[in-house]
């Protein structure tokens, strides 16, 4: 699987040309070929690729690129801007009624993840929109589909309306809506059976359900790994039903997800949510510019910031900052920080959002236990030691005791204390920096907190802590 990202490829093809003076049309053509192949490998529909390339090429031949000292950057910028434009520039919110019961109808091919995402969506809207959801189990065809939704409902403590598999889906939906009224549910999500868009009988069933339920949102679930056919699927569902939104599932795979671009471009259906894991809270609002970056392989800084703000307590952060400005950073502070980071999710997921790192770690093993080892080591320190890191660093016997207490090798503890000193200096330096300084530092690539280069391989951490 080609792991270089599209932006790497563009850079590569144009880097060969730098130092040769001005670019000519041939040079641009070479870059365009790379872009074409990369987009096709990302499963962007071939027709769109054609139009896209023609458009990009015209812009690339303009002054901005030809005269630039960094043509690679310029071309990437053009590609990125175009991708965002195609994707729809802003995130589209879900359609919900201001008052009364909002109804969402889920539809899609078999195996695209409707049942799981019915539950995820119900959970998400309960959490963020404060709604009282009811899920209707209208998939009477796939064996145990009703059961699956019932089980998911139990896990989340969300009501499920079901009538087994003997009733017609139309009847189930009708009864389910009545049930919602009686039970004051202000959100109803209807799970339906997976179906091929060419299956006339089953498509008619969806049309019937639409007429019965008058949904506010008709949500098409599409597997992010779908190839060229995504466009056919989406446009047929759209024709028959008037799809109002798309939910892109399995985006936690290593797919580029070019199908998203194709759907948006050819059908204009906005993509509203993405499924990013098997856990029921792993649903995210779709952001076009992030998808553009993913296709390009540029990382997701915005996603990282959002995760951070969601999980980091402002007052805690302020307190830490005050301490740092006074030049204080102890193991206790470090422990708090680790806990904060852990709350934000997997380390790999976080690192993957940082531009430039994403592509490097996509297939690497990251030992998520690293943080746990550090926590264990710090827990084995006395209160006094945690407040006085220098004394730990300089005392062999203290380190020996901590190693024994935590069950980690001595070397690892030694490493921790050494690195802690470095980190302390950097943290304090950073706290004293202005925002401008920080940006400058980040651009120069010596951001005070180093993400560390994760090593490949699953061996026990022989190299001590990495942070």
């Amino acid at each position, binding site marked *: 699987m080609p792991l270089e990202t599209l932006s790497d490829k563009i850079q590569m093809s144009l880097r060969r040309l730098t130092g040769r003076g001005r670019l000519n049309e041939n040079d641009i053509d070479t870059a365009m070929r790379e872009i074409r192949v990369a987009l096709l490998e990302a499963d962007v529909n071939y027709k769109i690729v054609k139009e896209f390339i023609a458009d990009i090429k015209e812009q690339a031949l303009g002054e901005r690129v030809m005269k630039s000292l960094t043509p690679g950057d310029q071309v990437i910028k053009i590609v990125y801007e175009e991708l965002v434009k195609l994707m729809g520039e802003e995130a589209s919110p879900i359609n919900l009624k201001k008052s009364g019961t909002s109804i969402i109808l889920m539809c899609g091919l078999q195996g695209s993840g409707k049942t799981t995402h019915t539950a995820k969506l119900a959970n998400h809207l309960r959490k963020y929109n404060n709604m009282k959801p009811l899920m209707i189990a209208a998939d009477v065809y796939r064996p145990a589909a009703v059961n699956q939704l019932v089980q998911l409902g139990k896990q989340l403590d969300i009501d499920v309306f079901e009538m087994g598999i003997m009733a017609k889906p139309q009847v189930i939906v009708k009864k389910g809506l009545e049930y919602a009224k009686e039970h004051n549910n202000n959100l109803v999500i209807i799970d339906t059976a997976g179906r091929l868009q060419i299956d006339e009988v089953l498509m008619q069933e969806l049309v019937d359900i639409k007429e019965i339920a008058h949904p506010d949102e008709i949500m098409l679930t599409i597997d992010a790994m779908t*190839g060229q056919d*995504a466009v056919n699927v989406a446009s047929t569902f759209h024709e028959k039903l008037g799809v109002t939104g798309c939910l892109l599932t399995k985006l936690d795979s290593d*797919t580029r997800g070019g199908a998203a671009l194709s759907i948006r471009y050819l059908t204009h259906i906005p993509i509203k949510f993405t499924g990013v894991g098997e856990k029921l809270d792993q649903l995210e609002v779709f952001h076009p510019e992030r998808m553009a970056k993913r296709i390009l392989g540029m990382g997701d800084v915005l996603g990282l910031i959002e995760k951070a703000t969601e999980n980091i307590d402002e007052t805690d952060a302020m307190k830490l900052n005050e301490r740092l400005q006074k030049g204080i950073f102890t193991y206790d502070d470090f422990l708090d920080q680790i806990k904060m980071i852990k709350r934000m999710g997997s380390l790999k997921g976080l690192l993957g959002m940082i531009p430039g790192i994403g592509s490097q770690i996509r297939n690497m093993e990251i030992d998520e236990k690293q943080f746990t080892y550090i926590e264990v080591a710090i827990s084995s320190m006395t209160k006094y030691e945690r407040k006085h890191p220098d004394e730990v660093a300089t005392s062999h016997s203290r380190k020996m005791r901590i190693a024994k207490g935590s069950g980690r090798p001595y070397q690892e503890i030694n490493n921790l204390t050494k690195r802690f000193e470095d980190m302390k200096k950097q943290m304090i330096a950073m706290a004293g920096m202005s925002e401008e300084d920080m940006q400058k530092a980040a651009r120069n690539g010596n951001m005070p907190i180093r993400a560390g280069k994760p090593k490949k391989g699953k061996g026990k951490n022989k190299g001590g802590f990495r942070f």
Partner: protein
Amino acid sequence: MGFLFFGKRKEKNEQSKKYNLGLKKTRTGLLGRLKQVLTGYNSVTEDLFDDLTDIFIMADVGVETTLNFIEELKSDERVKDCKTASELQPIIVDKMFDLYLKGEIVNNNLNVQKEGLSVFLFVGVNGVGKTTTIAKIAYRLKKEGKKVLLAAGDTFRAGAVDQLEEWAKRVGVDIVIKKGATDPSSVIFDAIKRAKEGKYDVLLCDTAGRLQNKAGLMAELAKMNKVIEREVPNAPHETLLVIDATTGQNGLSQAEAFMEVTNVTGVILTKLDGTSKGGIVLAIKDKYNLPIKMVGLGEKMEDLEYFDLENYINSLFDEEEDE
């Protein structure tokens, strides 16, 4: 064309009819356009090759495989002698056979041992149709007189065990379920024990769908594989990678990753009754030499056929039929 085919061919006619029916949408939908393209050109030109490239790409045949294929086609001696575009057709067909077979005999029979227990392991990403495929294979093997046991190894997804249990009932085969189990390897272990004691011919092991980039889940699969290897000599006799026909370029990454942790012996291409071509399996064969063993053509338990390359390729070039 020097082409041999292995597999059950008893009901060849009936089968190929169904196959063609299933593939008909394929044919009229996308790769069927090949013929249209060829007839649309008078002579062999660069534009024609570009259009051909688009057609392969459109069917999700891997980008690399397609580009190589077209390059080779261009440089083929016979192509240079072609005066009209339609003369290209037999050459393209021939080269597609070459692409798939690479001068070897491809055996797509399922490896059921004459004596003793055969164990088949089914792997793949989420939602490709592993459980349904197992039911279909169980049905087929049972019809052939085999004593079949199913192992409900998807302990993760809600309702997965119920789903396989329901299929076992419909097909009329036995199933091993471990209520409340979270370690699928233990389910597999129990199922092997039961299969040996009950003198079953074939054990079909279901597994949870897993994305190939989730290292933890892939390790779990490796463990299941190890348990099978340890408990039954020469097992698993088949490790079948189930791939959804709608899958795009990611199919290659799937094949590579699953081959790393298990000894994948073949591909089962599901949902070929839709409009998707599943062309990525041609790239998978080309790149990783994994044969396509069977294709899924519907939701009923009879809707599974042995993959027939001749049918597949020929039907791609058939005239469009009106219905």
